[in-house]
């Protein structure tokens, strides 16, 4: 009986302390609540454990036909502003001329594909390169974010918590790949999430699904049965700007030295 009373009293004290803390430090209380609550985009029935995955993407440059279906699908799927200044993914066209000069273009992120370039004469070789966030193993954007709004999830995906983002744009400056932009309406940093809302449900990112030539391969990096693992085994692989030591997790097959 005595024990019961003390434990009850202890509970009351705990509640009071909690309330006082809530009044004094409301942020800490809400932060604690948020951590238990499932994230907004994941519905509670989804059983996804980020610790069990390591996601990456393979891009086969030889397979890309520059149709831009990926850019388009991404904009629709992720509600990216349609204006030609905001892209989570885009496709670049490279035309290396006989004289060594390279013409690069990417009209409207290649959403409408490409037309013949006025200067494309004496072309030695030409190819398309889809670009997106590289979900670096050592992401400079995560390093510089002053409040930790940009973070690396346990599955290696680099995400932005819009509720925390101040819109200081330091991450945009720090990204060597131009993969980030400031959403013109929410005024927070935006980028490719590998369609996180889809991959937690076992689906593929929209760009991968939309690609008619299977130039983009999405999957697990650490599992031998994964198509991405096979892709890395069967091809000569390169990453963008390797000298910066960001360790990208988007791997390109048949990457040309012209691509920056």
């Amino acid at each position, binding site marked *: 009986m005595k024990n019961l009373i003390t434990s009850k009293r202890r509970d009351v004290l705990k509640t009071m302390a909690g309330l006082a803390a809530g009044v004094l430090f409301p*942020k800490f209380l809400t932060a604690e609540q948020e951590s238990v609550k499932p994230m907004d985009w994941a519905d509670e029935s989804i059983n996804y454990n980020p610790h069990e995955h390591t996601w990456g993407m393979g891009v086969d440059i030889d397979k890309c036909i520059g149709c831009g279906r990926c850019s388009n699908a991404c904009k629709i799927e992720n509600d990216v*502003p349609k*204006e*030609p*200044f*905001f*892209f989570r993914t*885009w496709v*670049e066209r490279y035309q290396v001329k006989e004289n060594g000069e*390279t*013409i*690069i*273009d*990417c009209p*409207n*992120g290649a959403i409408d594909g490409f037309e013949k370039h006025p200067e494309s004469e004496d072309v030695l070789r030409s190819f398309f390169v889809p*670009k997106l966030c590289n979900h670096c193993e050592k992401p*400079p954007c*995560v*390093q*510089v*974010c*002053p*409040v*930790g709004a940009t973070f690396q999830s346990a599955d290696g995906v680099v995400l932005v918590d819009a509720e*925390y*983002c*101040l*819109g*200081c*744009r*330091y991450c*945009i*400056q*720090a*990204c*060597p*790949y*131009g*993969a*980030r*932009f*400031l959403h*013109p*309406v*929410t*005024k*927070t940093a935006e980028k490719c999430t590998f369609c996180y809302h889809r991959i937690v449900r076992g689906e593929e990112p929209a760009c991968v699904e939309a690609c008619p030539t299977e130039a983009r391969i999405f999957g697990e990096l650490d599992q031998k049965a994964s198509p991405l693992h096979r892709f890395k085994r069967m091809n000569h692989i390169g990453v963008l700007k390797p000298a*910066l030591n960001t360790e990208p997790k988007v791997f390109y097959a048949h990457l040309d030295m012209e691509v*920056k």
Partner: protein
Amino acid sequence: MIMEEIVQHLTPLLDEVTGYIFPNEIELHWGLLVVIYPYLTGLVAGAFILASLVKVFNVKELQPTYRLSLLTALAFIIIAPLPLLAHLGHPEKSFEIFLTPNVNSAMAMFGFVYAWYLMAVLLLELWFDFRKDLILMANESRGIKKWFYKTLSLFSKDISDKAVAFDHKAVRVITIIGIPSAFLLHGYVGFLFGSIKANPWWSSVLIPIVFLFSAIVSGVALVILLYMIITPLRNKIVDMICLDKLASYLFYIMIVDFSLEILDFIHRVYESEESIKILASLVQNRLFSSLVIMQVLIGMIIPLFTIAGVKTFKVPADLRKLLYFISAILVQVGIFSTRWNVVIGGQLFSKSFMGLTTYKMTFFGLEGLLVSIALLIMPFIILWMLIKILKPWRAEDAAVAAHSASQ
């Protein structure tokens, strides 16, 4: 509505692009406000270093500008964070930088560096330096004014020789701590840029040091200007020994600053890394007028030669004053251009190293020219108020009055 404005602002820029830039790079993210921020903190650090010459290195000739330098530093540091705050997409969340800082982020340290400098260095030094005056002013005033000065003196009363001697000692100790702190304040701002490996224009270990010396240059030049404007307004005569000394310090620090900038330039050209082509194109096309003309020629070479000329030839006092004044203005133009060339220049080339873009300044709006001009004027208004309240030349004026009365 917001979207329409942005589209209207960005669409014409598409035609200005030369070569290839990534599609997300058309919008330039750090504009005029972010140029003003390092300019202001540079003036703070520079003015403080100048003040410290008097207290730590015993440069007696500069005594007339000691309090002016300290108050200038305070006036400018109060405004310094405002441009940063105004450029945030969500200024209302800025306090998160204190509550949940990312310890790996250089920017997260901003609040702590700033608070340390403002609270532990500037305010404390000013309080010890003005304590006796505040008590005397409280004794001489009545009513609300009395209480105002009493509050400012934090209700201290002791003006015995022993207490005043302690004040002097405290000021000296704080200044000694203050010098590395001022270096930290502005060197840190340089580090914010210098540590971005994605950007070859910024990523340089020299940037924090160049920032620091250019800060001292701008701070000394500002105090020269203020001293030359305020002294006649107080019906006093400019102390030429002090002014010559200020100009000398300006000259020598400019030589160090210029040498560092040249070293940076030579180093880049000599190493000639992957980015050299696009950076050369940047300097020749987009930054020619602001870098070669404004920063180097007008802001550095002309004032350097002017002051060197004054030092070499016997120049009469009035002409000397004029030349110093003009040089100090040119130096301000030059240092502002330096900040511009770093901040804006670093965003005018694509990280693909294949193309250049442009920056279109707006006039209205939070990030426009109007707000920026207001932010540059505000420190002077604050300085005027500080001078009105703290009466930095009170003792000096009283001594002069007593002297003339006795005659």
